[in-house]
């Protein structure tokens, strides 16, 4: 059974990789896609990418580890991110972070501007973006996930 799932995964990786031409300008898009599908780029995925693009595995990780959108480690089941850039900060995003961490005992990841400053503060939960969140509205939003 374990062997079967391993093969399945291997096939999916190959299928994704084959969507891209083996040129260096496609390395970043391929990494992004793999990170989005599997949640992160693990050693198996990096190995397959390295083979396909004809570069060392270290090069794949070198690029992957630089970008925020590409994860190289398994992510927590619930990832809560709150923007703490100046525009959201003056709209109280720090007290929202405190509120979440105190009420739900989950560490919040602070992120940089998403360019939605007119609708701030911005919260992102597992990739879904919430605008104009307040200290009270976060409770309703997060209860759906917990």
């Amino acid at each position, binding site marked *: 059974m374990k062997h079967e799932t391993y093969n399945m995964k291997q096939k999916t990786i190959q299928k994704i990789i084959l969507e891209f031409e083996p040129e260096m*300008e496609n*390395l970043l898009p391929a990494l992004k896609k793999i990170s989005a599908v599997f949640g992160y780029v693990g050693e198996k995925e990096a190995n397959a990418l390295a083979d396909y693009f004809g570069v060392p595995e270290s090069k794949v990780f070198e690029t992957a580890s630089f970008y*925020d959108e590409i994860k190289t480690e398994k992510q927590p089941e619930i990832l809560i991110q709150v923007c*703490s850039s*100046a525009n959201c900060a*003056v709209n109280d995003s720090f007290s929202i972070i405190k509120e979440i961490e105190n009420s739900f005992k989950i560490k919040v990841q602070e992120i940089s501007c998403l*360019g939605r*400053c007119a609708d701030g503060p911005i919260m992102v939960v597992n990739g879904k973006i919430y605008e104009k969140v307040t200290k009270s509205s976060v409770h309703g939003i997060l209860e759906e996930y917990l």
Partner: protein
Amino acid sequence: MKKIKIITEHWGKIDPLKIEDYLEVGGYKALEEFILGMDRAGALGEIKKSGLCGRGGAGFPTGEKFEIVASQIGKKYFICNLDESEPGTYKDRMICDKNPHLLLEGIIISALIVGADKAYIYINGNYQKQKEILEVALLQAKKKKFWGNKILESDYSLKIEIYSGAGAYICGEETALINSIEGNRGEPKLRPPYPTGCGLFGRPTAINNAETISNIPWIILNGGEKYSKIGSKNSPGTKLFLLNGAVEKPGIYEAPTGITVRKLIDEYAGGIKKGKEFWFAQIGGACGKLLLEKELKAKMEFGKACQCPLGSGSILVIDKSVNIYDLLISWTDFFRRESCGKCVPCREGTFRLWEIAKRFKDGKISERDKEAIQDILWTLERTTFCPLGKFAGTAFRDAITKNILTF
């Protein structure tokens, strides 16, 4: 006087997903004009005459950049820099949302002027919806033969590709952006060689901000001379300004360059929000200078002689109810996160500043910290590899010298 609008002219009046709407208001007329009635040198001359300069923050003359790339032979690239991630800035996002074809027309004309046969649109990875809008626009424009093989039955050909970034502030820096497309870490490279000589895949590359490019169709249609008479002498034209924070009507406004900050706040954004007391304004995002009330007469323009660099055009109005320590942490934490780690002064400097900012908030600031602040700021300003580090401490320094932060 009627307010001159170049980029926002048709915003809200046309459907961004319909090329017909844009054609009806005279869209792609500039491209036709360029192909049927002009040559490359003529168009380049108009852009040089217009005095248009880069809207991404540095304000480099666009005509000059085009000329350097155009004068070289062989394969060349054109890149539209849409990796907008300066806090408080969303002008390029709005351009995509409201009138993507204007941007596209500008990209096509610019790429043809410099003689590139491939253009990339490097878009911020978070701008998923904007990417989709641009994809639709690209498809529609291709059907009308505005790009692809033999544009409008002429000898010009151009390929356009959207390249999505992966969430890194530093990739807005041109050499870092090139590294990112080449599949490397998005770290800046030493300049020179400049991208205009040795850019993407070692070929001459023109990289321009999306807002700069959106001005090109107007210049081609109306002539460079007319453009050069708008706004300030040193950096003519209009600029998109983003007013946020404690103002009555926050939002995006197009105004001629050379306008004062006070005028922008009072006449465009409806003044300070009722019940709030003005404290200071931050110009140009997280790396921007702080202006006190008496300094609001500063003119917003580019160039070495300007009173206050306008950066990306964002203006954040801070009122007295804001906790300055929160802001300090916001600024320093932003640069700590986004520093690429290539050079030590920036990697360490931004980290230490953030630590000190946290101690400020906790009221645990020591004499040693106070001395260290000066050293760190000095080092950041003078020794970092790229502009990110150079400006990482600007707001912090202004907060101290202008007595916003007292200790």
